[in-house]
């Protein structure tokens, strides 16, 4: 081509454009070579759409103008064939630096346009946002509902549902945990080392003693009855736990919300509180964290427990409390004041000795 020729034929005239329409009705004109980088748009063009303003390509609703603009920036860069891998990688790294909200929108939009490389890029970025975070943090970041009940976060022991004593203990345990939390929230706690021991025993004692206060049908059990009706309505079969999403029992939602707020308060020390927080993370680590349906509520507190048995348990609990209560403070003094007792020297190798590599 001579210089004279290039003056006559303007480069822009050689470029093709496509017209894209978004869900808000606005229409945009985009260089075809850039837009075709999106498989969705490519398909539409091949079926004859988009070549004029009157027949624009209708983009999926998840693509709004700001997202389209970002996507086109991405396409405009990557559709140029000459770029090195290093260049592309560098562009990508800078490109995904945006707030999580936009990242989510962009992932969604890219997915609807079937632009896989961009979906991968944004998905990886989202995975990095999630990495290392607690469920509470993730919920906050993505604005998700906290709709798993506390029981659902923990799979109940199947075969103990037959034993009314275990059910009683489970129930008491959960209720006492809740009461203790309430109590702690009211106190201003700064625990010193010496008191740590007493507090832990105290907590355990009140946990145990507390069951004497509400042995008969209490406020909580009434709520449970009410909610059980609602739950039965939703639930399919008790044994089919794949329908766990249909177990929409809200009964303990309040409890689990309290639990969450308590756990997030950094000022609350106290051993039992830590334990309580750990409860919800019970299956956090490698024991294949499991959650399940809300079988906890299948029974009613008072119906099945034989009164004589209950009395036996109450006595046992009192006994335990008495033992701890009477023994511990005195024993502690003894321990602290006495010198160290020497253990007889063992001649065998200690437990660390091993020839296993």
């Amino acid at each position, binding site marked *: 081509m001579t210089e004279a020729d290039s003056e006559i034929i303007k480069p822009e005239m050689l470029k093709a454009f496509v017209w894209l329409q978004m869900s808000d009705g606005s229409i945009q004109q985009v260089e075809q070579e850039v837009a075709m980088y999106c498989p969705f748009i490519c398909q539409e063009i091949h079926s004859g759409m988009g070549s004029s303003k009157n027949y624009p390509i209708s983009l999926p609703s998840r693509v709004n103008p700001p997202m389209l603009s970002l996507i086109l920036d991405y396409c405009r860069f990557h559709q140029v064939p000459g770029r090195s891998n290093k260049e592309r990688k560098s562009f990508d790294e800078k490109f995904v630096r945006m707030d999580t909200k936009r990242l*989510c*929108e962009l*992932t*969604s939009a890219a*997915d609807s346009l079937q632009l896989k490389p961009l*979906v991968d890029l944004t*998905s*990886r970025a*989202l*995975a990095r946002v*999630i*990495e290392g975070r607690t*469920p509470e943090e*993730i*919920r906050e970041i993505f*604005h*998700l*509902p906290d*709709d*798993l009940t506390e029981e659902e976060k*923990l799979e109940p*022991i199947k075969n*103990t549902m037959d*034993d009314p*004593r275990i059910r009683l*203990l489970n129930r008491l345990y959960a209720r006492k945990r809740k009461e203790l939390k309430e109590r702690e929230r009211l106190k201003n706690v700064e625990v010193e080392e010496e008191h740590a*021991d007493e507090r*832990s025993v105290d907590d355990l004692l009140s946990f145990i003693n507390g069951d004497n206060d509400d042995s008969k049908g209490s406020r909580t059990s009434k709520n449970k009855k009410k909610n059980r009706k609602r739950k039965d309505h939703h639930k399919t079969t008790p044994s089919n736990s794949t329908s*766990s*999403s249909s177990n929409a029992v809200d009964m303990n939602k309040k409890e689990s919300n309290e639990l969450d707020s308590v756990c997030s308060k950094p000022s609350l020390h106290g*051993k039992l509180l830590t*334990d309580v927080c*750990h*409860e919800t993370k*019970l299956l*956090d*680590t490698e*024991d*294949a*964290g*499991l*959650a*399940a349906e809300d079988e906890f509520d299948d029974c009613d507190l008072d119906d099945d427990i034989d009164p004589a048995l209950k009395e036996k348990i109450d006595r046992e609990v009192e006994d*335990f409390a008495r033992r*701890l209560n009477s023994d511990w403070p005195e*024993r502690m003094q003894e*321990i*602290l004041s006495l010198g*160290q*007792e020497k*253990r007889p020297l*063992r001649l065998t*190798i*200690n*437990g*660390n*000795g*091993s020839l*296993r*590599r």
Partner: protein
Amino acid sequence: MAYSFPEEVLEHVFSFLSSDRDRNAVSLVCKSWYEIERWCRRRVFIGNCYAVSPDIVIRRFPEVRALEMKGKPHFADFNLVPEGWGAYVHPWIRAMSAAYPLLEEIKLKRMVVTDESLELIARSFKNFKVLVLSSCEGFTTDGLASIAANCRNLRELDLRESEVEDLSGHWLSHFPDNCTSLVSLNMSCLGSEVSFSALERLVARCPNLRTLRLNRAVPIEKLPNLLHRAPQLVELGTGAYSAEIRSDIFSNLAEAFSVCKQLKGLSGFWDVVPAFLPAMYSVCSGITSLNLSYATIQSPDLVKLVSQCRNLQRLWVLDYIEDTGLEALAASCKDLQELRVFPSDPFGAEPNVALTEQGLVSVSEGCPKLQSVLYFCRQMSNAALVTIARNRPEMIRFRLCIIEPQAPDYLTLEPLDAGFGAIVENCKELRRLSMSGLLTDKVFEYIGNHAKKLEMLSIAFAGDSDLGLHHVLSGCESLRKLEIRDCPFGDKALLANAAKLETMRSLWMSSCSVSFGACKLLGQKMPRLNVEVIDERGPPDSRPESCPVEKLYVYRTVAGRRADMPGFVWTMDGDKSLTFS
């Protein structure tokens, strides 16, 4: 406003989360994420096979492709868990053979695996790729033959440290001629000789073979044959490294090594003849991992070898290396991250080598990336521990084994509380700690106060009273595994901290002072724990309630009490009377 994604997009995001911790977090976010996550979870790690049942896992995760599981408690390595205790994998294999036809990987540690299980694996999973049996037992080479013969796409067969009944070496010949998929083969724990020609042909036809760990029976003269057929090897475990000293053997070996330009890891080295070590020098500069724990060679030879490996990151060696050798290591290997020094003569009354605390101090001074230590020695001082702690605050794993139980600081004759205290105070990222020597309750106070990231703690012959255990249970927030032997810990600390046990994977206490009555109480009050008493003297209720139990193993579980307990294990649960399985 929740961001609405199609499920596939969310699944795609989750697919980039590699850690189980992250996947577990994701599943606890909300109902819809829980559902999405469980359908796309492909890898499950179960730290305690009794914490959950096969049915529960299968019900929740219908599309699993890889299972990793651990069985017996760690102290089984020291013969503290009697034979027949449990950890049978067969029920899992049976359940998975029906539920997971597409299963590809099984990795087990400290579990009992039978030939029946291996045969079932070989028959059930058409796309089976990876079998790793670490410290397992219960199977023979016949089971291996099934795997070799039937798993068409086998990539990894790794038997590290398993106890295999070695009926013959014929199993290797069961790999069909069209098997070309092997990437990793570790048969180092086997005794019998395999057919060398079968091995040679297998190695030759697997172009992707990266890891080859031979057993002792493969002679050094044959090693070049294998290396020439697999120059792409990244990890090599030699067989016996000795032969009569002949120049042709040496030159063949040296030439073969020089061809393996990708070698990064070396192990094996049984019966080492030092004269053959220089044959490896051509690959030393690329070596990052060196396992010389079977190499009974003296310090000068060790030093010559190790100082060639400037990029060494991991070294496992016998105490023949001595303090001088460790000094040389500290001078040459600045990238060293992990050091394990094993005792050559642990049962001898007197030291047989000049290895003291000084060796470890030198390495802590010279190696800025040191983060993982396992060190056997015969003397230690608080001063040395304090120095090590100050030198290496990024330490993650610290396991010190002073061979004589309750040995005090050899300089001051004091307990080693201050030394270990310095370790936990300075090394804020410490995740694993194993202690020895003379230790009082004070050290546990330090641990409880400072070791906030500690996940695993091993204690033996330490402490004075329940206060020690109480400090650990009440202070160590991240504690997952606690194993204790021969310590004066009793009922009080255990019962007062009962709730803590639900936040941990397991607790092991043997030869302590926990009474049968306390075990019963613990079992009754904590329905989500399995409280198992191991007592080979007979039923615990044939002795007074105050009588201490031999061994106690407590672990959290959602599967209830196990049904496969042998006669010397009793579970303490809600039923007042003793329950047998």
